[in-house]
């Protein structure tokens, strides 16, 4: 089997005496989509914050391409080609679409003290990439992000992560605020990234989406790994049960 792109071993994360993650091990492979499932508060977001350098683990090790890494900041993770869309998208409302899109990775032209932002390229690329996401109403790269709808913002954040997440793309509930059509486009984009050999981590509460694209699945429950399995190893009902925190979700449904 191929070497995993990223491997977390025995990773723990405590907030005070609340153990959000308890010795979690997970691998992500290039060209595969790893679905991270679990109910609210299971620790999914905390885990991907560790993978993207936002949160430092209180225990365990992280390897990237077989080499141990320690992320001091999200920048360190980005430099390895890790792009992330966090659950609370994290855009800057009072600056423009183009400025948001390239925040932290701004294109520049010129030399030495005359090095300056390449506003033209930033505007053009940002609009192109957003249009790729099927967002039709954003035509002006100078539009303030604060004036966009929740779904448009989410699409912008995903477009940005797709553009910069060359190796590993982490998406924390990317389709939560999206309409049916836009969600389908995101799913399609995710598959295209996979086809290009990008490794993906995909958090969702939508079983249909998870079953449609997931190659491997990790289910978290109270900060622990409750199950890990490959595509096709479990039925839809079993997955739904696991996503509901191990309770008999299907049984609950039937009892109604």
């Amino acid at each position, binding site marked *: 089997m191929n070497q995993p792109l990223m491997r977390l071993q025995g990773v723990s994360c405590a907030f005070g005496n609340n153990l959000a993650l308890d010795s979690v091990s997970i691998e992500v492979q290039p060209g595969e989509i790893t679905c991270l499932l679990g109910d609210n508060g299971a620790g999914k977001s905390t885990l991907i914050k560790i993978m*993207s350098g*936002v949160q430092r683990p209180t225990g365990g090790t992280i390897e990237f391409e077989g080499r141990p890494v320690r992320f001091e*900041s*999200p*920048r360190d993770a*980005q430099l390895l080609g890790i792009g*992330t869309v*966090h659950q609370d*998208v*994290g*855009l*800057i*409302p*009072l*600056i*423009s679409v*183009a*400025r948001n899109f*390239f*925040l*932290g*990775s*701004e294109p*520049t032209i010129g030399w030495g003290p005359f*090095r*300056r*932002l390449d*506003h033209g390229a*930033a*505007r053009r690329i940002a*609009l192109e990439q957003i*249009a790729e996401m099927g967002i*039709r109403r954003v*035509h*002006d*790269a*100078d*539009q*303030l992000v*604060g*004036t966009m709808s929740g779904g448009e913002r989410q699409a912008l954040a995903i477009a940005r992560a797709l553009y910069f997440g060359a190796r590993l793309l982490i998406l924390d509930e990317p389709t939560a605020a999206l309409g049916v059509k836009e969600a389908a486009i995101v799913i399609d984009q995710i598959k295209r990234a996979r086809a290009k050999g990008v490794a993906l981590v995909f958090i969702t509460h939508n079983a249909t989406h998870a079953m449609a694209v997931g190659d491997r699945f990790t289910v978290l429950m109270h900060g622990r790994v409750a199950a890990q399995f490959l595509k096709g190893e479990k039925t839809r009902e079993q997955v739904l049960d696991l996503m509901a925190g191990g309770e008999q979700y299907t049984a609950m449904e039937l009892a109604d």
Partner: protein
Amino acid sequence: MTIETSPAARPSAPGRIFAASWFGPLLAAILMYLFFAVTGGGKGFLTVSGTAGWLNTAAELGIIAIPIGLLMIAGEFDLSTGSVVGAASIIVAVGTGFYGLPIALTASAAVLLGIGVGSFNAFLVNRTRLPSFIVTLASNFLLAGSALGLSRLIAGSSNVSLKDAGFLEPVLATKAYGFNISIVWWLLEALLGIWVLQQTRLGNWIFATGGNLDGARRAGVPVSRVKLTLFIWTSVSAAFVGTLQAVAYNSGNAVSGQGYVFQTAIAAVIGGVLLTGGFGSVPGIVFGTMIYGIVSLGLFYTGWPTDWLATFIGGLLVVAVLTNNLLREAALRRGRGRS
């Protein structure tokens, strides 16, 4: 059915100017100027010396207000500038005026003090995550007391004269028709500020740091370094003004700068900088500073009792905050920012 505009369509120029955060302050500056031209014009507000008067006041304030405004856009305050002005001026005056040390040495010491205070403020803010309001208030008091105590201890006074500042005289004390050279320094700094905010990555990071600290950090913005840079810029510009005052007015005063603590923040807010960070512009800050200069000198020319200056400024601040809010909301409705 509405017809969709093509992706290339850009908002019209008038729309852009109206939505820009400096439009309101510019309008206010013109109104203030007209007001005092009418009420104080007959008594000399419009003369060359009257114009030099308010511009000189605005320049010294503006040199500090520009980085203060940038710092506020990045979501932080600095209340320690007043003490840095006083301490820098007393360092230069005691060092060169009292002990006869070379001006190059004492002026460098003043700049180093600025770098030190800025780094101290940034370090505490970045490390402890305490609000910069309280951190810099503390350093203002720490430094104010030390500057006063040391100057009394060494020179026996809080006011020390400085007869000759050598090569710095032409650089900091040149005057032409009553206009001080500080106006040139102010405008040069404004150009630098505009360049930084509009054309550099640091500028983008300043907006982002103040607009959404967490989002900026996650996007890879080195937020601590952004704050460090701005705290140092602020303190060094305060040290520059302290040195300039000591050289231009031939004396250093340990307590003279305290007025800047609030005046700089007022100038920035009148200039359209959002108190909670993330929004503002350098031209706006410059116009806000001009308004401060026009009002404080203009009132003198009206012949009305100048005791009411603070009341006037207070009223202006309230009006400025309210109109800036309206303009910002209008900008958000129109959805146009400047990129």
